[in-house]
């Protein structure tokens, strides 16, 4: 399964989810579980780092949108780190740039969060 998911604590009550590989209908449940678990634990401020993601499709986008909706209910937020132009393009054409904070670096995503 060509997906890597790693969750790590950063400053404050903020967590970073590192994703890598390909996020599709087969692999996205693993991403969904990792994000869901964090939220269940009461983590509502998330940075999701997509720098190592080579591919994402609508099931992956759906998982990110689902996560965002859940944290928003608790006044939380999700910021994305995304540098791959093809993946940025997908956030562009789907209009998701307007609902996610999308940043060039983890630092920037983190600063914008808190």
């Amino acid at each position, binding site marked *: 399964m060509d997906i890597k998911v790693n969750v790590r604590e950063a400053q404050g009550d903020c967590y970073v989810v590192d994703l890598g590989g390909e996020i599709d*209908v087969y692999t996205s449940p693993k991403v969904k579980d990792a994000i869901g678990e964090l939220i269940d634990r009461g983590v509502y401020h998330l940075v999701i780092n997509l720098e190592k993601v080579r*591919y994402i*499709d*609508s099931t992956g986008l759906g998982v990110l*949108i*689902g996560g965002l*909706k859940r944290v928003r209910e608790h006044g939380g937020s999700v910021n994305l780190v995304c540098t791959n132009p093809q993946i940025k393009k997908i956030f562009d054409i789907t209009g998701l740039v307007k609902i996610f904070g999308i940043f060039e670096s983890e630092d920037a995503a983190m600063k914008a969060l808190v």
Partner: protein
Amino acid sequence: MNQPVQRAEETDVVELRVPCKAEWVALARLSVAAVASRLHFSIDEIEDIKLAVAEACTNAIQHAHGSSYIEIRCEALADGLRINVRDYGRGTRPESIRSRELEDERVGGLGVFLIRSLMDDVSYDVHPEQGTQLVMTKRLPV
């Protein structure tokens, strides 16, 4: 895929049949990307094609209940690549297949929108009892 295509004008056709299961979408994506690369599409165009094919397969897996296989047919055109994705599931009503409104922040509903955004000609042929057929074309830049 059911009858060999052998025409006078020799267009190259590649056909792939994969189980209608999530774990085979990556193969479909990769194979179609290799066809596109063979036809000299750019890396960005190949990514568009990969995503469109993956969305079509994902819909077959998620909505075409009862389909055992997904069939993908790639036809090399003089000016592009025509891709046919079909399943043999229950199908849907034609009016269900539409791009969502972007304002609508739903979790789903992006697949058809992406297919229509990334490909040049897209048409669905929906048979409630015989499954769904999607034909989409990506043109090579002139």
